[in-house]
């Protein structure tokens, strides 16, 4: 008996030590592989220079800007939309439509990103091109619109979850005292659910930043610093997908690991932030 228990304990802990090691290995491996570049070119240079391999410049600044541009814009589009939808689900609560919307949102989580990318290429890009009479339609705006759709369910589900977690007794109190819906939202729900909302935003932002296919397929992938939302741009993730075919010994290839490290650190910071918000008692 005892013996079985001990063995099981070892097996379980071994499994999780291994899984945890994978997380660290991903970072460690990338750092080791990018060491040669880090040694002769300062990390800072790589982060600030433009990308022009023909001229021996291997900076990833345009990709960092592109990543931030696209993901921030998608967040900007998606946030009010998601907030509205979660208010619809949790607060306005029309009987049928409310539940239907929730189902639709849950279903949205199951739509593959490549499908969004595919529809983006054939539906959204031509519309954007003809609407704005500018560029190819493969641009930051198109990618952000599709990404906004991709990250909306993350936010809506987290928002409505944190709305729902506001104790029923608080809501009952406001109801019984004759408060209306806006007052309920303003005085009770938002003050109690803001952590959840912030967590939702951070996770959605991470999701937008980490997505490869939508940006790769519909943002145009040009390496210039974008100046408007109708400009084409390249994200770090798309950059990795595009350059992966390069010569393994070239500097270009090694720079990929710096892209990877950058992405890793950015999303990890987000996660740590989200967790530190989540854990504190409300």
């Amino acid at each position: 008996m005892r013996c079985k228990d001990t063995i099981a304990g070892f097996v379980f802990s071994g499994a999780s030590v291994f899984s945890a090691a994978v997380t660290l290995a991903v970072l460690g491996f990338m750092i080791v592989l990018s060491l040669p570049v880090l040694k002769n070119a300062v990390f800072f240079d790589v982060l600030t220079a433009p990308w022009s391999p023909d001229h021996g410049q291997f900076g990833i600044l345009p990709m960092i800007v592109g990543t931030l541009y696209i993901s921030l814009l998608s967040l900007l589009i998606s946030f009010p939309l998601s907030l509205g939808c979660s208010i619809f689900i949790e607060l306005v609560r029309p009987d049928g439509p409310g539940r239907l919307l929730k189902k639709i949102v849950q279903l949205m989580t199951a739509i593959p990103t490549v499908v969004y990318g595919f529809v983006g290429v054939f539906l959204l890009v031509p519309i954007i091109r003809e609407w704005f009479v500018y560029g190819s339609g493969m641009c930051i705006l198109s990618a952000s619109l599709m990404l906004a759709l991709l990250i909306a369910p993350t936010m809506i589900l987290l928002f409505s979850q944190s709305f729902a977690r506001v104790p029923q007794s608080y809501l009952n109190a406001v109801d019984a005292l004759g408060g209306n819906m806006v007052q309920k939202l303003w005085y009770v729900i938002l003050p109690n659910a803001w952590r959840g909302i912030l967590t939702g935003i951070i996770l959605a932002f991470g999701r937008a930043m980490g997505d490869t296919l939508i940006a790769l397929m519909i943002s145009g992938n040009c390496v210039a610093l974008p100046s408007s939302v109708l400009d084409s741009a390249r994200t770090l993730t798309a950059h990795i997908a595009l350059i992966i075919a390069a010569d393994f010994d070239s500097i270009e290839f090694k720079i990929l690991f710096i892209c990877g490290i950058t992405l890793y650190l950015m999303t990890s910071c987000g996660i740590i932030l989200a967790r530190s918000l989540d854990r504190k008692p409300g």
Partner: protein
Amino acid sequence: MANNCWDKMLKIFSWICTFLLVTAVFMVIGFLVVKGYKAVSLELIFADTRPFDALLLKRQVFGGLFPAMAGTVSLVVLSMGFALPLGLASGIFLAEYAPFRVKWFFSLLFDILAGIPSIVVGLFGFSITIFLHHFFSEQIFPCLLIASLSLSFLVLPYIIRTTQMSLESLPLQVRLTAPCLGATKLENIFLVLLPSSMSGIISGIVLAIGRCAEDTAVIMLTGAVATAGVPKSIFSSFEALPFYIYYMASEYTDHSELMQGYGAALILLIISAGLFGVSYGIKNRFATKIPNRF
């Protein structure tokens, strides 16, 4: 009354948001359905090969989705094969064995793992392969095995965390029942705790399967190719549905290939939605509802 006016505005705002979102989603789905439903047929999957021959692997399918679907299925099976035991064991460890600090640190790590962009996981898998190829064996290439290992790292945190959370959310009462009757820790876990939290765990697993089936970025870097036929061994390259869609979207050469792209996108959508339905059904079946009571 001013009160009511604010209320109305909030309602209108939420209705507009809902309308926009639902329209957008239906545009996406509707676009695929309208354009793609004609393409969906046995021919789309098997082209000119007899389905029976293809399924028995007697003949290769060219110009159909069968190899890509077979590739995706093998990917899912293999990566779940790696991720499931590892994930369940780790989840159990975190929920039932780990001391507080260890639990805190490990679950932070797993959250980070869940947040790592899939392309970075792919990059990791790819560079591991190159590394092994150089220093270990010339016979190691980007292949089905590598891709499914990388995918399993991608979905591992989902399985771990859902297992952990469903176990942890069991009330103390349930947790103490079996020990009180003389059960050992292991008996308690396998006879009571796991069965009681099955619904949560299964729906986590189904979501992980969905992720394996849909992820493109990882396999793009670890062995998915344009043409490979049905994978013959875990050491060969493979086709996969999501990669096929990506490939067709950018390099279709004629109308019929484009239609195949639509068809493939629709089929992948249906598969993902089906998996979602399964997980939803499971959740509903097991869920105990707590009504809102005063």
